[in-house]
């Protein structure tokens, strides 16, 4: 298939970028989206041009490294799919594809399609962990946990931290990410000790990083490759309210 690609090219974090057009004439429909970009980059290297920089790692849809917005949708048109697992058969011959980096103030562009997502790591450092000793593997089964909570916690823990929720949100909000990380612990007994400090710390860091506020568009859930539900955002709101109201310094 033949494709016209409009790709955001930006030399580094300090320079301005612009959309640049490329023509690819021999794209196989069985290629993954990233393999298609690999082909483009091989062409660019042969011509002596700078290849398009993009993040990728496992190429199995589990690491959350690949991050690009395809025709306005993070990770592209296929539901519950990361860019690396998106295949070219989802596009039409002769189609124009716009490829841009994840857009948000808290995700500054480093080069081309690569953005700095360290803000997520700094949020995790404020409470995305437990400090209690959980023992050996068999000890996990000694603590009774309701099926409902176990399932919900697992649903939240499916988040791979790719940042598509932020990229899809018209407000650049990280509420889906933070709500998943807060709730995966808040729903389990092991997460109770730091429960209040966790939600306050992570939400405050989220705001300090410059992520926006949720206005319930639910674009995050639609873009999420792991289909994390927005119900976790609703739970985060009450979790944060309860923690703030019962905190001594409020």
């Amino acid at each position, binding site marked *: 298939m033949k494709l016209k690609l409009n790709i955001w090219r930006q030399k580094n974090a300090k320079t301005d970028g612009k959309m640049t057009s490329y023509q690819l004439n021999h794209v196989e429909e069985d290629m993954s989206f990233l393999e298609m970009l690999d082909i483009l980059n091989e062409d660019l290297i042969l011509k002596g041009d700078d290849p398009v920089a993009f993040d990728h790692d496992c190429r199995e849809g589990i690491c959350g490294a690949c991050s690009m917005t395809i025709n306005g949708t993070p990770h592209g048109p296929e539901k519950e799919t990361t860019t690396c697992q998106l295949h070219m058969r989802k596009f039409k011959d002769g189609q124009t594809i*716009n490829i841009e980096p994840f857009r948000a103030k808290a995700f500054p562009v480093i080069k081309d399609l690569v953005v700095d997502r360290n803000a997520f790591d700094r949020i995790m450092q404020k409470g995305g962990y437990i400090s209690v000793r959980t023992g050996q593997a068999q000890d996990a089964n000694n603590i009774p946990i309701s099926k409902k909570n176990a399932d919900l916690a697992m649903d939240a823990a499916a988040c791979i931290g790719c940042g598509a929720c932020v990229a899809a949100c*018209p407000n*650049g909000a990280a509420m889906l990410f933070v709500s998943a990380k807060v709730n995966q612990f808040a729903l389990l007994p092991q997460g109770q000790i730091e429960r209040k400090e966790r939600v306050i710390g992570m939400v405050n860091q989220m705001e300090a990083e410059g992520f926006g506020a949720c206005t*319930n568009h639910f674009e995050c859930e639609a*873009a999420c490759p792991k289909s994390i539900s927005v119900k976790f*955002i609703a739970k985060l*709101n009450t979790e944060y309210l309860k923690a703030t109201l019962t905190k001594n310094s409020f």
Partner: protein
Amino acid sequence: MLSNFLKSTILSKILVAVTGLLLVLFIVGHTLGNLLVYLGPNAINTYALGLKKLGALLWVVRGGLIFAVLIHIIATIRLTLYNKTAKPINYTVTGYITSTFSSRTMAIAGLTILFFVIYHLLHFTLGVTNPEFMKLETNLHGENVHDVFTMMITGFRNPLVSGFYILAVSFLGLHLNHGVKSLFHTLGIAGPIFTPMIAKISTVFAIVICGALISIPISVMLRIVGGAI
């Protein structure tokens, strides 16, 4: 306490949701009251007189509403400006999936409603734009009372007034369509059955409120109501 709430985006949103809920309750009451115009002069004039006779209680409710409106506006303006800075560059091609025209126009709809409410109060409540409205009197069961019926009919006979009313109420419909479902989600009431259900209920609610309110100026202009005036 209030400033602590306004400093946090989540707590600000909770303020927006709670004040929004109060304003939704007001709009339901106001719509039901206004629909009395269809029952003739005595019905709506009796209702207006009843409200006036509440005396101090009416002012408590009005004070609460003004407070709710102020908090709603301050919090949403702050959040809207904050959100604009969080997404400085948008995509060249936008690929919205679940957001709606309603959800993306909350701020502009809200501001239109605000300007309309200010005019509406100057027009019908305070009598600033039309002082003659405040002097209209009628005899209700032997008592001289404010003739709200004639005021509404005369007011809505002006196509410009009715036009602005219809435009603002249409924006109110858009605002309610997203606002009602949104407030439940912000207050933590959500789930796989509830969330899609409340979205549908919000849309029906917005259409019903919008339709009921818009029907009044249209009926007045078509002389279905108050044809004799």
